[in-house]
């Protein structure tokens, strides 16, 4: 493998990993507060992308008719609009499906199953209402291809990678430095004592869903811009894998989600890439899932709480 090809793979892995990371951050956010594996998150990502699609086509539509809206404004409005509306979806789900269960003291796994159901509901509602055909996402960001020394990359790729890093840093600071962040982490540990600190628990949980859903919306729009095709089931596979990435990194830990996401991206890309290296020709790309998941299995067996996860100390 030449250096240019290697760098190309490296860049590919960074981009692919940053999608996992962005979605994993949303998982980790909600998990970090409620210990809830929000299996609907992948589908909220899908909802975010679709809402973005509708806002963008609407705005482009007006632009075409009478007065032109500058494309940066369309992009900004699409992102903001989708974040707001997707947060609304996330909040509604929390309000009507999760919170009542919590208030009835249900086992957390029942909430997890409810989340799975909500995910299915969103997928098939989309399918039933919008039809089975995939949609093309409008080019909000004019894709430019740059080639430097045999390595090709697009502006969208760079934006996605940069964005996921920025989001991670922002989240980390938010959770560590602000009282709301502390309250979020405290809720995950002991819901009984949280109100005793004067913390409005439901409001904090709602805020968590707002952040998680906004992240999903952001990821959805970036995904649309990078891959151009939306489908009702686009959130399933990437959602599951992002969840796996979040756990391998150490679920509930922002850095963990990030590292887990990139790690999974790198493993997936390089299992394929390695087949090019002399001596590894036997490593067909059909082995990708097999190898990737075996590596994850080994990581978790050796490090039972993921890379960054701190075991909840079982003081005896």
């Amino acid at each position, binding site marked *: 493998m030449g250096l240019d090809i290697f760098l190309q793979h490296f860049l590919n892995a960074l981009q692919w990993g940053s999608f996992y990371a962005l979605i994993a951050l949303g998982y980790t956010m909600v998990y970090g507060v409620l210990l809830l594996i929000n299996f609907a998150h992948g589908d909220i990502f899908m909802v975010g992308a679709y809402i973005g699609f509708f806002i963008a086509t609407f705005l482009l539509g007006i632009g075409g008719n009478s007065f032109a809206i500058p494309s940066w404004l369309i992009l900004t409005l699409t992102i903001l609009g989708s974040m707001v509306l997707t947060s609304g979806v996330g909040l509604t789900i929390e309000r009507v499906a999760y919170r009542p269960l*919590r*208030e*009835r*003291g249900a086992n957390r796994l029942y909430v997890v199953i409810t989340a799975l159901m909500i995910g299915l509901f969103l997928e098939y509602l989309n399918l039933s209402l919008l039809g089975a055909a995939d949609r093309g996402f409008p080019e909000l960001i004019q894709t430019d291809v740059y080639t430097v020394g045999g390595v090709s990359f697009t502006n969208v790729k760079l934006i996605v990678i940069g964005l996921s890093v920025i989001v991670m840093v922002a989240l980390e600071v938010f959770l560590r430095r602000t*009282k709301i962040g*502390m*309250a979020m*982490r*405290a809720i*995950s*540990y*002991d*819901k*009984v*004592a949280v*109100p*005793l*600190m*004067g*913390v*409005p*628990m439901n409001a904090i949980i709602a805020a968590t869903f707002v952040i998680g859903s906004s992240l999903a919306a952001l990821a959805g729009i970036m995904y649309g811009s990078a891959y151009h095709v939306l489908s009702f089931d686009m959130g399933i596979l990437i959602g599951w894998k992002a969840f796996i990435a979040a756990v391998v990194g150490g679920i509930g830990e922002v850095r963990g989600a990030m590292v887990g996401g990139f790690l999974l991206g790198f493993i997936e890309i390089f299992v394929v890439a390695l087949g090019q290296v002399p001596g590894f020709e036997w490593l067909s790309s059909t082995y990708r899932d097999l190898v990737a998941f075996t590596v994850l299995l080994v990581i978790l067996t050796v490090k039972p709480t993921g890379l960054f996860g*701190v075991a*909840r*100390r079982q*003081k005896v």
Partner: protein
Amino acid sequence: MLLEVKDLRVRYGNIEALHGISFHVEEGEIVTLIGANGAGKTTTLMTISRQIPYVAELGGRVVGGSIMYQGEDLLHYKPHEVVSKFGISQVPEGRRIFGNLSVLENLMLATYSRKDKAQIQKDLRRVFEIFPRLEERKNQRGETLSGGEQQMLAVGRALMTRGRLMLLDEPSMGLAPVLVRDIFKTLAEINAQGTTILLVEQNANMALKLAHRGYVLETGNIVLEGTSEELANNPEVKKAYLGG
């Protein structure tokens, strides 16, 4: 009258744990509730702070009565408002510190609804003065503290909330004798500085020594009340609760 509980009735499922209890706490007082295991002391405190019925894990609900605090019925408020609006802080049974937060974060979280930054720093210094052990461990994760250290942190947290009324549920549980005395001394001090205290204690000897007045709770009913001396000298109390 700062706090007046009237005919409070609380149920867990079909079992009534409080059968209509009434008591009151005057501004500036230390009042203690004593009673055997399962008498309903914790239930009483949790109901005042509105944990019951809001916290699903506890599983209880209020079926009657009122909790008047400064002329308003607490039963109309959410648990966090009891803290942020009325300034009632609590040291819960079993400490319940946040194990995944550092000692310092635990203390800072308790000031969630406070805005007075300068005073918060002063209070923090005071807590560290009372419990130097906490300062030594201020960056340690809460869950790795020993039982006693956790209890200090729980009291420290309630101090950081800086309430007018402090509810304490067995603050001496699991503490070394020196510390028990320290904590009681601290309670006397903060009371002198103007905080009213409602104290639940198994260690009835010490509780009655500290408190001005007390109530005896037996299986969900208040069976006796009086000044601390009266109770300490009551032969039945002596026999049942003072180990005498």
